[in-house]
């Protein structure tokens, strides 16, 4: 995949693939919404803009207001931003650490591999959510970024494992041998020979990590261990439940955040399968 012609070819197939297109457009749609939203709607997410709270959707408040008279739409769009941030940072770190561990373990093999692999398996069995939970529980000031960091640093193992396997299969290929014989540094080999040849794999890994991070963040937020200094989709759900949105039937408070997460993550997953078809000609539909 390292030569341009091929890359174009994949781009070409990617844009022909319905799943990829659908997923991509969903992401873009929400991304735009998240960044245009604050421009068209100037209410601050936490401000108590409407004296009589819990009003349904209206021309003034598109998604209605919370029990305290906060603007749900404003919370929603700001929440979207937080969501994408978590996905980007959390998913990014998850992928990067996974790559680092996977490449080194897979390429070096031997003792290094043994250790890294053991580590991977350990972190893999530990229910990372539980770890996140107690960390968050005791870490009293939390921001979206810190949350993402923790998510990223607990989400890497399966990526590492997958990448390790791929690297294994690649390191014995003759073009790698060639570079090795030509005395190239391991790092350089990884960067120039191995990584490009599993670009597809890395892209897909990142997408999955992205979606995973979003879900974990939402879950943490929901039990009140999310960011303490801003709004997020998960927090919206938490507040709505805490403040009787179900019982009072203020559905506009708890439907949008969950729906958005579902659509975004669903889109990502669909896109992933689409890319899979793109990168594996065997699976391509014609």
């Amino acid at each position: 995949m390292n030569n341009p012609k091929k890359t174009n070819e994949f781009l070409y197939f990617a844009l022909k693939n319905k799943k990829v297109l659908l997923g991509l457009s969903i992401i873009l749609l929400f991304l735009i919404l998240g960044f245009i939203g604050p421009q068209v709607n100037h209410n601050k997410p936490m401000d108590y803009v409407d004296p009589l709270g819990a009003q349904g959707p209206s021309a003034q408040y598109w998604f209605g207001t919370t029990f305290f008279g906060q603007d749900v739409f404003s919370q929603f769009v700001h929440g979207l931003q937080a969501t994408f941030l978590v996905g980007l940072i959390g998913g990014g770190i998850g992928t990067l650490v996974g790559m680092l561990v996977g490449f080194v373990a897979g390429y070096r093999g031997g003792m290094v591999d043994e250790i890294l692999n053991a580590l991977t398996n350990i972190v893999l069995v530990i229910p990372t959510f539980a770890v996140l939970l107690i960390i968050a529980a005791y870490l009293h000031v939390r921001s979206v970024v810190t949350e993402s960091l923790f998510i990223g640093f607990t989400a890497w193992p399966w990526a590492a494992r997958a990448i390790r396997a791929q690297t294994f299969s690649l390191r014995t290929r003759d073009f790698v041998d060639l570079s090795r014989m030509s005395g190239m540094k391991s790092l350089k080999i990884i960067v120039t020979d191995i990584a490009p040849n599993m670009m597809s794999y890395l892209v897909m890994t990142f997408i999955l990590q992205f979606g995973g991070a979003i879900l974990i963040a939402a879950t943490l937020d929901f039990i009140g261990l999310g960011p303490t200094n801003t709004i997020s989709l998960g927090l919206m759900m938490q507040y709505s439940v805490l403040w009787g949105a179900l019982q009072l039937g203020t559905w506009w408070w708890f439907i949008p955040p969950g729906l958005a997460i579902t659509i975004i993550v669903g889109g990502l997953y669909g896109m992933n399968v689409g890319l899979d078809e793109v990168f594996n000609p065997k699976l391509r539909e014609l």
Partner: protein
Amino acid sequence: MKKQLYVIVALVMAASMVLTACGAAATTAAPAPATQAPAPATAAPATAAPATAAPATAAPTAAVPTNLPRNETIFVSGAAWGPASTWNPFQIGNLSNTSGIIGLVYETLFGFDPLSGQLTPWLAKSGAWTNATTYDVTLQDGLTWSDGQPLTADDVVFTYMQGKTNPAVYFTGLWTTEGLTDVKAVDATHVEFTFTNPIYQEFTNNLYNIAIVPQHLWKDKTADDLANGTNANPVGSGAYLYLATGPDRNVWQRNDKWWGIQTFGTPAPKYIVDIRTSSNNVALGMLLKGELDLSNNFLPGVASLVDNGYAQTYFPKAPYMLAANTAYLAMNLSMKPLDDPAFRKALAFAIDVPTIVKTAYANLVNPSTPGGLLPALSQYDDTAVQKSLGYSFNTATAKKMLAAAGYKTGADGFVMNKDGSKIALQVTCPNGWTDWMASIAVIASSAQAAGINVTAATPAQGDWNTALQSDTFQLTLQNNTPLTNTPWTTYNALFYHPLPTDPKALEVNGNFGRYNNQAMFDAVDALGRVQSSDTAGMKTAVSAIQKIMLTDMPVIPLWYNGAWAQWPASATAVWTNFPTAASSAPTYPITWNGYWQTGGLLTLINLKAVTPK
């Protein structure tokens, strides 16, 4: 492979469900023997039920019914926020999840009626100071424990003695600082308390808070038992008996042999199921579905429900609720500019309490009087002082006062310290306490409107708590001023003394701003030493306190948190005749820990079943 999977799945499902059933059963299996107390004969098969798996033994028995008849059961909520963990009346702090152990099972010498401000008879028929240092209590006749033993003066003496002999008991202060020197039984129904220089106000408070325990069952308990013992299967003298407990409920059964039936009448519900709701919204939902008969949760939405006739509250319109405690703004008096009374006074004028009442509480609360005393104690307020020195929301006035006090406005439109340095204050409350979060938002914005740069922050509860106790906060909300018989508890909490000598030491009892003014301390002590019967004396003492308080403004009382109570409107209701402002003899309809003595039990006695069996 298919078949195997089917079998596995089937097996596991069955197994796990049974497990659950047993596990659930196990939760009563432990305390179940309690039921042996009322009816040893029938209890045996009942307690065996959970143990043996045969459905046959599950047949309801007189002692432990497995299905409570709805029309004899009252569902209450709002007291318990966790599974019951102790039935030991000496562990007041941990009883909140077992609300009723004091009041339903164990009884106090007196009750207290916040609406009249008077102590009411309970185990004691009457009590009086025979002289400045001697208090005589006369017990009711025919008092009995639920195991049939008589309750006598010796039990009272035994109970109060625990404070002398056990450091871990919470009322050791009776002996160490309140001046109690001796308690003795004159005869079976007379107890005599002897003091030197008593704190009358606090002792009066103790009289309806300390639960009397049976000497014949407690005399062998060690200090450790008193401090950590769970006292499972409690045997008390009260109107209800322990029946069962679960992770989300406590179940009490009426004691039909209760000594008080002749004196006070029979509580209407045969069973009380005290439900622990995971959050207020669950209570709201259950209330709407008629699955709760009395909710003591804070339900912000309830105002509209009452207006639309779905639910009822004590008042038919705002504030809907009786008052339970005073929410006030605590200030760190050791930092600039909060060390300047003039600044604090201006801040008091700057805070927009009306908006807090409207947005954060949907009109479920009332603003507080500057003196901070609950309406129940308003008779002691010095209205003159409050008029002359008091405050009310007025941005303009606040600005004037700041200017007058010499605070210049900086380029950013906010006032600066007198040395020209910027002022940036932070008002906090624990994250997740949403009504308070909304409130501090209003405090911040209204203060800014008056030119005081205040921002709101919501640290985690632990941090907030540490900051509060270690005096590292700036501005924060507090409400450790419970409803009691005396202004003394309120002011003792606000101006608690002596302050810790080491400034780093934690202060857990109150006076979090560490207001250090001997004149105030003396005034509070003076109030404490006025006899509860001496209303005039109390008024003078309170007046002295309020003068200093409103001059110095060490704290800013803001609003009264409500004694949250709501019940379904009659259409769906199982129980009726709840107390309202219209009732002939209204009571506090509260089931929280410590409120059974202040009207909770009386409320149950006055209830009527809508469809009597």
